[in-house]
C-alpha cells in the first residue's frame, strides 16, 4: 500500500471511530429526548464522569491523580456506565419532575459544576493538565491493524447498544415512554408511575453517554477539560440527533456520520488555506457556522430530521402540528 493510501485509510478509520463514539452517545440522548422527551443538556457532564472513571481505573500509578489501578478496558467501561448512572440518579431524583425547559437548565448547570470540580480538584483529576497515558486497546498491534481493531471494538459496542435500545423502543416499554413524552397527564391517569419511568429513561440514557466518555478517553489515550466542553459534546450531539431524526435510532447514527464528517473535514479545508495572523485565530469559528448552517438547511427541508421517527401507522400516519 502506498503511503497516500495508508494516510487515507488511517483518516477513514479515525473518522469512523469518532462517528461510532458519537453514535453511542447520540443513542443515549435519543432515548432521553427522542423517545421520552427529557431535555438533557448535560451530556458533557455524563461524558466527563464516564471518561474520568475509565481513565482513573485503567491507567498506571502516576502520583498526579487518584487511581493507578491498571484495570482492563472493560472494567473501566462498565464502571463508567455505573458512575454516570449514579450521577444521573442523583440529578434525576432532584430534577426529573421539572418540565422540559427547566430540566435543560438544571442539567446544563450540573454539567458545568462538574467541569469546575474536575478542573479544581487537582489531587483527583490532575486539573487542567488532564489524565494521560490511558491504555488504548489493541494498540500493540501497530500499523493500521491496531486502529482497525479498536474501530471494530467500538462498532461492536455501538451495535449492542443499538440492538438493545431498538428492542426496548419497539416494546411496550418504548410505547409507554413515548406515551409519557406525548402526554404526561394521560400517562398518569393510565396508572403509570411517570416519575419512576422518566428517571429510568434518564439513567439509562445518561449511562450510555458515560460509556461514550470511556470510549473517547481510551481512543485519545487522554482526557482533559477541553473534551468536556459543552460545544464538543453536548451541542454537537444534539445537532446530530436533530439533523438525523430525533426518535429514530438509525437517523441519529446517520446524523453522527454527517455532522462529524463535516466537522472533521471542515478542519482540513481550513488548514489547507494556511491562513496566518488574525484570520488563523478566527477561522475555527467558521466550523461552528457551517454546522449551524447545515442544521438550518436540514430543518428547512426535513422538519423532523432526515430520517423521521417511524410511526407504526405507516407513512400516512403523520402528526398534524
Amino acid at each position: 500500500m502506498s503511503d497516500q493510501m495508508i494516510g487515507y485509510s488511517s483518516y477513514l478509520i479515525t473518522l469512523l471511530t469518532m462517528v461510532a463514539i458519537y453514535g453511542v452517545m447520540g443513542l443515549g440522548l435519543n432515548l432521553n429526548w427522542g423517545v421520552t422527551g427529557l431535555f438533557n443538556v448535560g451530556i458533557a457532564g455524563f461524558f466527563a464522569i464516564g471518561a474520568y472513571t475509565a481513565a482513573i481505573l485503567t491507567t498506571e500509578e502516576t502520583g498526579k491523580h487518584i487511581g493507578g489501578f491498571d484495570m482492563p478496558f472493560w472494567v473501566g467501561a462498565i464502571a463508567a456506565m455505573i458512575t454516570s448512572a449514579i450521577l444521573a440518579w442523583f440529578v434525576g431524583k432532584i430534577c426529573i419532575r421539572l418540565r422540559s425547559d427547566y430540566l435543560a437548565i438544571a442539567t446544563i448547570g450540573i454539567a458545568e459544576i462538574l467541569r469546575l470540580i474536575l478542573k479544581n480538584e487537582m489531587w483527583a483529576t490532575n486539573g487542567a493538565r488532564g489524565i494521560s497515558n490511558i491504555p488504548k486497546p489493541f494498540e500493540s498491534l501497530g500499523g493500521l491493524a491496531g486502529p482497525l481493531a479498536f474501530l471494530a471494538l467500538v462498532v461492536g459496542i455501538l451495535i449492542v447498544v443499538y440492538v438493545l435500545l431498538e428492542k426496548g423502543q419497539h416494546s411496550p416499554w418504548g410505547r409507554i415512554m413515548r406515551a409519557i413524552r406525548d402526554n404526561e397527564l394521560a400517562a398518569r391517569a393510565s396508572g403509570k408511575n411517570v416519575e419512576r419511568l422518566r428517571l429510568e429513561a434518564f439513567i439509562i440514557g445518561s449511562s450510555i453517554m458515560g460509556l461514550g466518555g470511556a470510549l473517547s478517553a481510551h481512543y485519545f489515550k487522554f482526557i482533559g477539560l477541553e473534551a468536556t466542553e459543552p460545544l464538543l459534546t453536548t451541542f454537537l450531539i444534539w445537532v446530530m440527533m436533530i439533523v438525523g431524526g430525533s426518535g429514530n435510532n438509525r437517523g441519529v447514527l446517520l446524523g453522527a456520520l454527517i455532522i462529524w464528517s463535516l466537522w472533521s473535514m471542515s478542519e482540513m479545508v481550513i488548514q489547507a488555506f494556511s491562513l496566518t495572523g488574525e484570520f488563523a485565530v478566527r477561522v475555527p469559528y467558521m466550523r461552528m457556522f457551517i454546522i449551524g448552517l447545515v442544521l438550518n438547511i436540514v430543518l428547512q427541508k426535513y422538519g423532523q430530521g432526515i430520517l423521521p421517527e417511524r410511526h407504526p401507522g405507516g407513512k400516512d400516519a403523520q402528526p398534524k402540528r
Partner: protein
Amino acid sequence: MSLDTNAETSATPEGQPVLSIQGIYKSFGGVHAVDGCSFEVNKGSITGLIGPNGAGKTTLFTIVTGFIKPDSGSVLLHGKDVTGEEPHELFHKGLVRTFQIPHEFHGLTTLENLMAVPAEQDGENLFKTWFMPGAVAKREAEVRALAEDTLSFLGLDRVRDELAGNLSGGQKKLLELGRSMMSGAEIVLLDEPGAGVNPTLLLQLGEKIQRLNEERGITFCIVEHNMDMIARLCDPVVVMAAGSVLTQGNMDDIRKDQRVLEAYLGSQTAEAS
C-alpha cells in the same frame, strides 16, 4: 361514618358507598375551589355531578384521583382512606378518571393508546423485553386482543392505526372512555364526556356508558352539563355550587328545586347556558 374500614377492595356490596368524599377543602390563592364538599358514590350506580361553571366539580375529580392534594378532608375508597395517594396507586385500586379536554397520546395510534393502559405488562420492564421475549409477547397478545375488543365496542375500528392526534374531538372523547375501559377499573369518574360531542354520538356515548354499567358492573360518577344526558343516565344526581354540595336526589326532584335554579341562574346567568 359507619363504614367498616377493613372492608376488602371489591367486597363493598351493591348499593353501598364505594367512594366517600368527606369534607374536602381546596383553595387556590383566595379562591375556595372546593369548600367542604361531601357526598358518596354507591356501588353499581351512575352518579351525576352537576353544577354551574366554577362550582368545583373538576377540581374535586382532580383531588379524588390523586392529581392534587386537598387542603383538608378525606377520600375513602371501599371504606379505606386513600387521601393524597398518587394517581397510579389509585389506578391499581380500581379508580380512574377521564379528562374534560381529551388527553390522548397524540403520537401513538388509536390502538396503541389503548394498549398503553393496562397494568402488569411484562413488556414495560426493559429487562424482560430483552431477556424474556416469550412472556412479553404473550401478555402483549392479550393486551392487543383486549384493545381490539374495546375499539369495536367504541366503534373506533376504522381509525385503529390513525395517530390519536389526528382524531376528531368526538373520537378523542370515545378514546378517553376507552382508556378507562382498558384500565379494568371498577369506579370511573367521567369529566364532561359529552362536551363537544355531536348529538348522535352523544346518544351512543350514553348507551355505551349504560352498557358498561349494566354488563360489567362499573360504577360511574359523571360531571356533565347536558341535562338530558344526566336525566337519562344518572341516579342519583349531586348538585354542587360554590365548592360544596347544594342538594342531591333524583333528577326530577332536582329540576323542581328552586335553589338549583338559583345556583345556575342567580349570579352566573351568562354562564348557565
